[in-house]
């Protein structure tokens, strides 16, 4: 017969062994020695590792996620450090010219974006080859082989590219600056960004109305910040010489009204969102989809675009112009609206940039390019749905509380015409060939970073 002491000892050891084994197993599952972890999630089939799509006001959930406004977000839990994440999304897109998926990177609200769906690229009938995970379309007669495409690419100047850095300089032939400054009345409220084509010199003379600080940032064509200024004055001149030819980006943060810009640079194009102050505006755009919203009664009006008109008759309602051509004129009689698009706007009819190098969004069979390179593959059609995959390198991803944050940009989605997601499959991948101890130490470091 065992003594009380021995029984106590046996029970203690057995208990500790059982629970420690469970703990060790859980950690091993977390570390995932196979190097690949796949998570499947759908609107019906929740998974604690993936959040629902939010904000809820922009999504209707039934059998699918119906995205009725953009952007929307979701987060995924990553249990151990991985090097790459791939999202395989089953979706139905009847609303949007293009749909983007982004992964949060850096400290700010910035996202590295990839194309999930683009109707122009899907409908393009040019011969196509896959080269280093990139799709290359060729519009040249007789070029279909891989080697011909590679040699053709090296010699061509007419290359359009999407989401890959372009090593070719963007040069507009026969361009010269205005001899004397030309002023354009823009009459914009608050923040905006613009792209300016620079050939050696940039000269922009901003006129502000208001007493607030204006912050002006100038980025070169590789997105490096090259100048930043703050001003309280009603006038600010941004001037730099000896610049490399290309497209420069300027972002203005202000609570003032920008009444006009005088410049010697011809191409001054505005991106993303503009808040138009009261008064008549004429704009030219190459966007495929434009969203318009009036914030007060003074913004209710009839907007004329491409021989059609759009009645803005309700405050805060979002109105969409869809399937637009690559040149759309907008006549806005009384202003006081917010406009948002997936393309560029110009206040000058003659100077709208055809495309931004490295980020072309629109291309058709009639386009005047010899090649198109994009980090994009045509989706696989599965009944009414399409399936496509986007992948991200996690080296620069923001990981907060062991979570990755994704954005879905589906400009054009609305309650009548939502962007529908049936399922999302997330595949995390690690570099292969690491020893158990390396992986274990990486895992501890990853956990420690989260605790701190």
């Amino acid at each position, binding site marked *: 017969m065992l003594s009380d002491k021995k*029984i*106590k000892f046996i*029970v203690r050891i057995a*208990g500790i062994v059982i*629970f420690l084994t469970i*703990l060790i197993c859980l950690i091993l599952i977390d570390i995932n020695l196979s190097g690949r972890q796949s998570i499947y999630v759908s609107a019906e089939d929740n998974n604690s590792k993936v959040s629902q799509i939010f904000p809820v006001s922009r999504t209707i959930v039934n059998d699918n996620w119906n995205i009725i406004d953009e952007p929307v977000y979701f987060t995924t839990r990553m249990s151990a450090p991985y090097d790459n994440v791939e999202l395989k999304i089953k979706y139905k897109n009847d609303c949007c010219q293009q749909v983007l998926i982004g992964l949060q990177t850096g400290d700010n609200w910035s996202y590295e974006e990839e194309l999930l769906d683009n109707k122009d690229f899907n409908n393009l009938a040019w011969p196509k080859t896959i080269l280093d995970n990139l799709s290359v379309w060729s519009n040249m007669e007789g070029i279909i082989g891989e080697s011909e495409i590679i040699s053709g690419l090296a010699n061509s100047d007419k290359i359009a590219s999407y989401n890959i850095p372009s090593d070719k300089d963007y040069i507009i032939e026969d361009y010269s600056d205005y001899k004397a400054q030309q002023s354009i009345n823009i009459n914009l409220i608050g923040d905006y960004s613009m792209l300016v084509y620079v050939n050696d010199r940039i000269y922009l003379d901003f006129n502000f109305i208001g007493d607030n600080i204006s912050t002006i940032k100038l980025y070169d064509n590789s997105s490096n910040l090259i100048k930043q200024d703050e001003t309280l004055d009603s006038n600010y001149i941004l001037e730099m010489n000896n610049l490399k030819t290309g497209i420069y980006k300027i972002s203005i943060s202000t609570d003032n009204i920008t009444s006009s810009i005088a410049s010697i640079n011809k191409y001054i194009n505005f991106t993303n969102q503009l808040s138009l102050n009261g008064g008549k505006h004429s704009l030219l755009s190459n966007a495929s989809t434009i969203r318009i919203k009036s914030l007060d009664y003074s913004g209710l009006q009839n907007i004329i675009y491409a021989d059609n008109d759009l009645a803005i008759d309700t405050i805060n309602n979002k109105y969409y112009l869809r399937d637009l051509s690559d040149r759309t004129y907008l006549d806005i009689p009384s202003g006081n609206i917010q406009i948002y698009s997936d393309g560029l706007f110009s206040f000058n009819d003659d100077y709208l940039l055809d495309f931004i190098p490295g980020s072309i969004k629109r291309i058709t069979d009639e386009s005047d390019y010899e090649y198109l390179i994009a980090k994009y593959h045509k989706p696989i059609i599965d009944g009414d749905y399409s399936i496509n995959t986007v992948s991200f390198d996690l080296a620069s991803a923001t990981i907060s509380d*062991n979570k990755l944050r994704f954005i879905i940009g589906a400009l054009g989605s609305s309650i009548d015409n939502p962007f529908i997601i049936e399922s999302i499959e997330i595949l995390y991948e690690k570099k292969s060939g690491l020893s158990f101890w390396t992986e274990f130490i990486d895992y501890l470091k990853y956990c420690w970073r989260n*605790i701190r």
Partner: protein
Amino acid sequence: MRLTKRQLMIFDEIFAIISITWIIYMIAEYLKVGLISNYYDLNIHFIILIILFIFRIMLKED
């Protein structure tokens, strides 16, 4: 319900181990969200603890 002194001792040992485990798992979960809760339900663990505790109150030594 009556148990022998030895049976009560074993019961108390098991109860103590489950309690300490729950605390360790809670700390592990706090330090790394999702480590335990994704595969193992800490709430059920806690409910079992409460049931055992109530049961322990009703037990008497023979």
